[in-house]
């Protein structure tokens, strides 16, 4: 599917360099070459099909190589790509009969988070997601998807509504972070996020979360606690933006690339650290090259997991949700002697080999 559309990508990207990121330049060159060959072929009537075929094969190889090994900084570029599908795109492509519900019933309707009822596969569900906005006007209205406290409270209000009517909750995450502003602090942004973390841990309906673009810190986690957490292949999920991290630890935002690599926040890396459950593959070249295919993958993931979760007793679901979150990032050890030299253990060794469980049992013995 993605192959077909990648053919038409050439024309997608031909409006100048638009749509190509710095590291995609080599691909752009090849795509242009193909186009030119096709143009001369059409104009002169001479047969270039063999050459075109060779270049196409090279393009396919290059693509495969490039997109399967994006580094962290390239991933950030992909996650922030101006053409990357946003939450409303996914809702349009995978949800039927979406009925948006506004407002937190307290202060106002925060446009940075969109909430509403809809149908996905055979399921009815509450959908909650960040909305970065599609054009300048909308982006400004939505604070670029950076929510205020009322956004998190709106999300919680709709989750509670879903709980009351036994509807599962689907959260789509795409934000640089919660909005850092005076009003946000005045209205208790910390508390709003904290309360969501607590309530999502015990919400008595299945909750599925997916990071579709940027997973920015507490602003992402504020709608990110659930039974399953997936990350799209070229999305990222981080404790802090690479720029912010660079500014603090490297004393300059120019080291963002270094910080990005250090933070290990790409989907694959997070999966390796067992911090997310699943990595959802994207169409070749990223979700923006074929939004319908990307939405299809996400939809199948959500439908399959909802089907599974709805078969389980809610007590079981809640216990597993607790255990899941309880074991996230258990990268610690208790050296017998507290000699400070013994601290370094390989992450995989700690995570696998029952290392987690062992440390858990240490936890109780001191009592």
């Amino acid at each position, binding site marked *: 599917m993605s192959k077909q559309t990648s053919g038409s990508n050439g024309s997608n990207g031909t409006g100048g360099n638009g749509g190509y990121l710095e590291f995609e330049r080599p691909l752009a060159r090849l795509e242009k070459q193909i186009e030119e060959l096709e143009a001369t072929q059409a104009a002169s009537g001479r047969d270039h099909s063999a050459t075109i075929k060779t270049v196409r094969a090279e393009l396919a190889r290059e693509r495969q190589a490039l997109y399967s090994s994006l580094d962290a900084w390239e991933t950030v570029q992909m996650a922030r790509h101006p053409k990357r599908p946003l939450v409303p795109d996914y809702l349009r492509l995978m949800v039927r009969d979406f009925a948006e519900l506004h407002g937190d019933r307290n202060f106002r309707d925060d446009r940075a988070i969109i909430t509403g009822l809809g149908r996905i596969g055979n399921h009815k569900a509450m959908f909650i997601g960040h909305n970065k906005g599609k054009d300048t006007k909308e982006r400004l209205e939505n604070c670029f998807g950076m929510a205020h406290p009322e956004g998190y409270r709106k999300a919680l209000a709709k989750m509670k509504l879903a709980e009351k009517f036994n509807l599962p909750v689907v959260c789509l995450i795409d934000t640089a972070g919660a*909005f850092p502003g005076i009003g946000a602090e005045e209205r208790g942004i910390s508390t709003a996020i904290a309360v969501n973390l607590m309530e999502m841990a015990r919400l008595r309906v299945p909750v599925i979360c997916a990071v579709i673009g940027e997973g920015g810190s507490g602003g992402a986690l504020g709608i990110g606690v659930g039974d399953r957490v997936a990350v799209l292949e070229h999305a990222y999920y981080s404790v802090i933006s690479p720029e912010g991290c660079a500014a603090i630890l490297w004393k300059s935002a120019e080291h963002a690339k270094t910080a990005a690599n250090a933070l290990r926040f790409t989907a694959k890396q997070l999966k390796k650290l067992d911090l997310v459950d699943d990595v959802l593959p994207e169409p070749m070249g990223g979700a923006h090259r074929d939004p319908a295919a990307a939405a299809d993958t996400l939809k199948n993931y959500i439908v399959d997991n909802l089907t599974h979760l709805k078969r389980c007793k809610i007590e079981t679901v809640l216990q597993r949700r607790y255990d899941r979150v309880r074991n996230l990032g258990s990268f610690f050890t208790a050296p017998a002697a507290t000699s400070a030299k013994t601290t370094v253990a390989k992450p995989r060794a700690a995570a696998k080999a029952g290392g987690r469980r062992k440390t858990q049992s240490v936890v109780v013995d001191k009592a």
Partner: protein
Amino acid sequence: MPKVEVPEGVWLRCDGCSQMIFKKVLEENLRVCPLCGHHYRVDARTRAMQLCDTDTFEEFNAELVSTDPLEWTDSKAYTERQEEARKRTGLTEAVITGKAYIKGRPAILAVMDPFFIMGSMGAVVGEKVTAAIERATDDSLPVVIVTCSGGARMQEGLVSLMQMAKTSAAIARHDDAKGLYITVLTDPTTAGVAASFASLGDIALAEPKAMIGFAGPRVIWNTVKTELPEGFQTAEFMLEHGYVDRIVPRSELRNEIARIIDYCGR
């Protein structure tokens, strides 16, 4: 604010009122300036001593240390940074947890340390706080957490962020079991810690003038480009906006906690 110290380190100039104060007097006064009431930051051990009945603090999980999951290095390796923090503070991590008695009332206590990598929360802090809350739930005891943190620990990446979810989930269970949770917000309580367990107390106490907030003032300034209001992100600001129940001077904390346990504890 210039801090002038006499060679012997006997006197120091108060950060609050710029008067010269006797160091010993400061220590005896729970590290609060006797002249202006400025609350100095307190290390975790001293704080626990200030709050608990003598020799009743029985520590849990004292030996837990991070395994450096990201194999992190910035200007310094994370392992080295931890090592230095351990040497400087005498602690293994940025929080100590345990069971203690406060004016005769049993409680689970967690105290964060501002001097251990900014009191930041990584896997160990998350685990120790979570285990402490779980213990409180299991033993039907109140839990008191003295918060003091720059937020999630960047050197552990998303591992740190997930500790916010983990600690908050434990509080949800404690809450379901009708357990009491008291927070004491001290300077500074910010970012990832503020946006998780620090803001979930049934009763939220705060020390005077403590900085409490989510985003750093500089980040906010860079976003909104306007003057930040006077007293922004202080304990008083949080009280005024409805996020803190009481501002309690350090000398009164023990009494206040005991009093609340009498009202709400079992």
